């Protein structure tokens, strides 16, 4: 009887882990469905405004917000970024206005160029580095005219129903 306790305990632990993974839809976090990013409601504004903006048909959250040089850096940063969000959400230390960090800025910029390289190639070349972000001017392309406003798309003058 005593000999069965340890295996039974391990089995229960694995089963509990399995239930946790199944119940929380954990594998979804390995994918790139934007709805998954919006599981936390702090992402409502970012999600909603992206959904109505120009890039929604072409690019998901991870297409812009994760590095795409190789699968290793992609999943490493995905894990890091995800855990960062988990910690700040659980401890309620996230800012009221959520903005991309300086590190994310670099990743997003590289992803802009990844898709639009042919168009912007000639303005990126030069003896001096191109020292701005695309969205310094193209402010509304990713998250729409209202950016990360918490009250999206209520202006019927601008957005008729």
């Amino acid at each position, binding site marked *: 009887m005593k000999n069965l306790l340890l295996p039974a305990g391990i089995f229960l632990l694995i089963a509990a882990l399995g239930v946790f993974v199944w119940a929380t839809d954990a594998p979804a976090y390995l994918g790139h469905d934007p709805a998954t990013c919006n599981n936390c409601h702090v992402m409502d504004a970012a999600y909603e405004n992206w959904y109505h903006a120009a890039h929604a048909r072409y690019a998901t959250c991870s297409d812009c917000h994760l590095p795409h040089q190789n699968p290793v850096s992609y999943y490493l940063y995905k894990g890091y970024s995800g855990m960062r969000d988990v910690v700040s959400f659980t401890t309620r230390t996230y800012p009221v206005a959520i903005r991309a960090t300086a590190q994310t800025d670099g990743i997003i910029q590289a992803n802009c160029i990844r898709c639009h390289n042919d*168009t912007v*190639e*000639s*303005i990126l*070349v030069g003896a001096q580095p191109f020292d*701005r972000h695309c969205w*310094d001017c193209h402010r509304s392309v990713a998250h729409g005219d209202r950016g990360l406003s918490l009250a999206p798309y209520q202006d019927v003058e601008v957005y008729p129903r």
Partner: protein
Amino acid sequence: MKRYTTIILVGIIFVLAALLSGVLLFLRNQPPQARTIQPVVTVQALEPNSALWGLNYPNEYSSFLQTAGNHTATTYGGSSQRSYLLEDPRLAILYAGSAYAKDFNQARGHANSLIDVRATARVDATTHATCYSCKSSDNPALWTQMGMPAFDALSFSAMSSKVNTPIGCANCHEAGTMRLIITNPAVDAALKAQGIDWRNASRQEMRSLVCANCHVTYFFAGAGKLLTIPWADGTRVEDILQYENTLGVSDWTYPGTGTQMIKARHPDYELFTADSTHFKAGVACADCHMPYVRDGAMKYSSHDVMSPLLDPYQSCGQCHTNVDDVLGRVGIIQNEVYNAKIAAEDALIDTITALKGATARSGVDVAQLNQARQLDRNAQFMWDYVSAANSTGFHNPDEALRILRNATDLARQAQMKAAQAAGDPSLLTTGVYESQNPPPTPTP
């Protein structure tokens, strides 16, 4: 048989391994990928002929050529060669005694620079070659060969044979690298005087700094008429005024008042960089005046430099989504600055009238009269600083209104001081221009 199979298999493995190693080594030794534009021709350093640069950069060059024909006027600006003197006759009074009273037209696009400087009535037999400073892509080479003092010491007509091409690529770009550079030695010196080395500036900073090659205020120093940018004390209007007052710069003596006047010349860079909203937001001159445009799949910076109001959807629309709203805002700002400018002009004309009256009188307190002249000189420079700049204040609305407010205040102080010097309250008469030039009665 079995023995041969083994040998063949091992042979294949060896060949494949060698092939793989070869491919990997080949890949390893490839030059690193770099974004680059393959030049069609090699452009020599300081090459004045823009058409040659244009072979390598056809989009930029063909848009630059459009500056030759872009003569459109906006409400207050544009590039239409409108006569400022006819539009606002107050200017003829304020510039009386200087060459600006003869002829003062709006500048046209970059490609017309040589034709227009040779056509203006401001140039006469006494004019120095300094007036060619910002007019030709031959200049960077000439400045390098002969130096700026020798260039400026020559007469305008003596230099005419050496200067053949209008403003072009060589005025802002380094051949080969196409890096943006300061080519005007006077601007280089002025930046150095402030402890700034433009070679350390970022690309975005250079996208404004290259405009400072010409769009800055200046004066001619000494008998050699050396082009000088008065930035040693800073680039705010007060710093520039203080610098020119300390040196005792005088561009002309105002007839009848004896005031030593100084002329402000298009301080566009200074006004824009004086903490304007757009400058603080990281916007450069080129962002609005040379917006990125598309030709097919390619994007490039338009070199058809012009007023953003002539193509606001391209210029403002990159950042502002509601362009009509933006245009309304520009209209409000420019109207306000224009009205403040006219108010300053009326005050200055009242001052000039009072100063003339006081100067003509005998038994005047000379010390007070000289104070009045100094105030008049400062007031007119500050008014001119906004008036002579492009954009009717839009480059920096609050700074423009602040300067015009101070100009009007100084002008009224000067008038009061003149009346005090003569001990004659009748010199405090206001509205002189209006009374002499009553606005036309509207016909019913």
